[in-house]
């Protein structure tokens, strides 16, 4: 019972929060703060318990599995932090009650998904999550039809694919229980196997923005308030990963349908490459991060698709990690937006001078995103490569490497375009973000740092959740990584080495040199002998990666979005033709009646 209570409590609290905001803003903020604190406290102290009841002749079952609780940790932590972050971030906006209502509904929806042990309740919570996130995507009131409806349509395509799978599964196995489906899957006919698993995969692929179903994501991520996008990209998209993991491992890997797993991995790799390429050329920080998210989700799909122990481990680790670092990055973007009101690279520069804490949080996140030591990103990358190597995926690994190398490009673009470069007068009034916005970012940065050396903190949960997927006895060590061929890396040594050398030189150069150096502004530069005037700004922000664009533009010209749009238009035009049937002339309608009658007679005479 306690399981479902937590979700109902969140929903109830959402409504209470809505009412509180109608009464008084401060009261509402207090309500939000309370749930943000209560959520992790409650989650980490309660005792899980299974619960089921009958609805409409279907049995709904609830309860965490060891697998879903892994994701629940992410949802709870990220949900609480983003809620805290939202309090100052959203403070100046209108209709806060509405915002938090949907915010809490989507958190409740996510927990509900993770708690569902049968497909019907999974679908119900899935849809609750979808429409509540939809209502937040259109919250800003901008481009509601273009972005919002697109998001809803793609979500619906996914959700309806899932619904179709659910009814078919219900028909084949007589129950909608998820684990029962997995257990009996091997007995299905080949067609049933392929159909049901592909439908489920489509459903989850939409939410995890796998190409070619990613079209909604960049705009939806961009259009919702950044405090929500942290959760959206960090946790909500992981619901797709959650399902995808179940499909890929329980259905493909464990039943020998490796081909589909391979296909999934390839899709993931293509997603990773193309999304990264697109991210490189974005001029809006939110869009850049959005495409980056899609790319990272592609890596996860690769890990799940190949389905080896190491691959799954990599995927799950990256899924959690992505929640952390993309959470920080979107929060940083939000902080910048909050203080400057701008998100375009052409309008931002030099913010390191004004927002150092934000910068360092973002730096930590970027390093983790790029996969460099000494942060935890390296571990996820390492696991993926090792998994691909040991399962002999020659070309996938090249694609992944291409993607992660190209990722350096946008990582630098993000840091440079926003925080570095020549500062300008228009940022003189900018202040560091409010403390309540910084706290979540800094906390998550520390998390990334800790995981960089001690990934075992999370491997513990991952290995127990992987036992649900059929990987028993996954070995892990606190800070040593081992691949299938027995090659190891010692993270403590690596990181200590790096930090010690860094520290030694830091001390030397600071003590020896820094005292004698002079701090100058960004306009005091050697510009090939020409002095720069104070009013000129030479910040480099236009056509940032023009040469790279020249290289890959032949590929980038073909956008699947154009195809989708013309398809949708085609459907519209097709039915436009049918509208002509309703001519407005009553006599024509009468004629239809007679025509129909004639057809019925003829059909009746021949068929019945």
């Amino acid at each position, binding site marked *: 019972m306690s399981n479902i209570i937590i979700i109902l409590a969140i929903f109830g609290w959402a409504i209470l929060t809505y009412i509180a905001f109608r009464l008084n803003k401060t009261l509402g903020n207090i309500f939000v703060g309370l749930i943000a604190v209560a959520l992790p406290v409650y989650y980490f102290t309660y005792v899980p318990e299974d619960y089921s009841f009958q609805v409409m002749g279907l049995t709904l079952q609830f309860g965490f599995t060891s697998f879903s609780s892994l994701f629940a940790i992410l949802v709870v932590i990220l949900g609480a932090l983003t809620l805290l972050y939202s309090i100052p971030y959203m403070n100046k906006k209108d209709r806060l009650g509405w915002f938090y209502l949907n915010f809490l509904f989507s958190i409740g929806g996510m927990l509900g998904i993770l708690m569902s042990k049968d497909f019907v309740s999974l679908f119900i919570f899935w849809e609750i999550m979808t429409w509540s996130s939809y209502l937040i995507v259109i919250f800003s009131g901008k481009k509601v039809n273009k972005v919002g409806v697109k998001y809803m349509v793609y979500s619906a395509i996914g959700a309806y694919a899932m619904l179709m799978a659910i009814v078919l599964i219900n028909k084949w196995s007589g129950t909608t229980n998820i684990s029962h489906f997995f257990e009996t899957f091997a007995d299905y006919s080949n067609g049933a196997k392929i159909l049901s698993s592909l439908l489920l995969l489509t459903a989850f692929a939409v939410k995890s923005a796998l190409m070619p179903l990613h079209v909604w994501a960049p705009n939806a991520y961009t259009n919702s308030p950044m405090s929500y996008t942290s959760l959206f990209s960090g946790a909500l998209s992981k619901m797709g990963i959650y399902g995808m993991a179940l499909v890929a491992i329980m259905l493909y890997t464990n039943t020998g349908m490796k081909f589909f797993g391979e296909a999934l991995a390839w899709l993931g790799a293509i997603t990773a490459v193309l999304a990264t390429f697109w991210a490189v050329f974005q001029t809006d920080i939110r869009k850049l991060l959005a495409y980056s998210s899609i790319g990272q989700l592609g890596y996860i799909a690769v890990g799940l698709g190949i389905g080896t122990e190491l691959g799954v481990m990599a995927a799950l680790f990256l899924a959690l990690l992505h929640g952390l670092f993309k959470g920080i990055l979107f929060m940083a973007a939000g902080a910048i937006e909050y203080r400057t009101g701008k998100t375009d690279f052409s309008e931002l520069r030099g913010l390191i001078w004004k927002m150092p804490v934000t910068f360092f949080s973002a730096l930590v996140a970027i390093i983790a995103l790029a996969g460099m030591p000494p942060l935890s990103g390296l571990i996820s990358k390492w696991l993926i490569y090792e998994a691909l190597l040991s399962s002999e995926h020659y070309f996938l690994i090249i694609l992944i490497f291409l993607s992660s190398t190209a990722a350096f490009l946008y990582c630098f673009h993000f840091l440079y375009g926003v925080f570095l470069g020549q500062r300008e007068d228009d940022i003189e009034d900018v202040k560091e973000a409010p403390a309540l916005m910084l706290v979540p970012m800094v906390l998550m940065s520390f998390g990334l740092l800790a995981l960089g050396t001690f990934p075992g903190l999370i491997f513990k949960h991952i290995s127990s959740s992987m036992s649900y997927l059929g990987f028993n006895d996954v070995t892990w060590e606190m800070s040593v990584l081992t691949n299938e061929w027995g090659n190891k890396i010692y993270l403590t040594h690596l990181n200590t080495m790096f930090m010690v050398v860094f520290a030694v030189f830091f001390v030397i150069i600071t003590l020896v040199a820094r005292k004698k150096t002079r701090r100058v502004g960004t306009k005091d530069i050697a510009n090939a002998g020409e002095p720069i005037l104070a009013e000129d700004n030479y910040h480099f922000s236009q056509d940032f990666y023009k040469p790279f664009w020249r290289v890959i533009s032949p590929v980038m010209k073909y956008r699947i979005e154009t195809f989708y749009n013309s398809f949708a238009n085609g459907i519209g035009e097709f039915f436009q033709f049918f*509208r*002509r049937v*309703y*001519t*407005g*002339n*009553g*006599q024509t309608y*009468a*004629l239809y009646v*007679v025509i129909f009658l004639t057809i019925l007679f003829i059909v009746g005479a021949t068929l019945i």
Partner: protein
Amino acid sequence: MTEELMQQILKISFYGASLALILIGLYGVLTKKNLIKILLSMAIAESGLNLLFVAIGYIMNGTAPIFSTAVLDENNQLLETVTMVDPIPQALVLTAIVIGLGVTAVGLALVIRLYKHHNTINIDEIRNLKW
């Protein structure tokens, strides 16, 4: 002329006439442009249908289903020689006629309204609502 032949002639004439009326009415509804003519055609079709119904209820050499003193003996029993036709079609046709009347009346009222609004009773020109 035998009884059977008479029966066949009656059958063909009644059924044929009623079907012809129905088809003529439908033809009128589908082709006439004048709203009033359309309503009249519909009334014609209904008449044909009513005729058909009554014809179906007929029994050869039957009388009206009324137990008047002319068809009863002294004990109020029906005379052996009398066959009565089916009373149900007659009752139902009565209902059908009244319904037809109601529809026609409402239709005519609508035609009056449409004429006032559009200044025409050509059905092709009254097409504000479409698609």
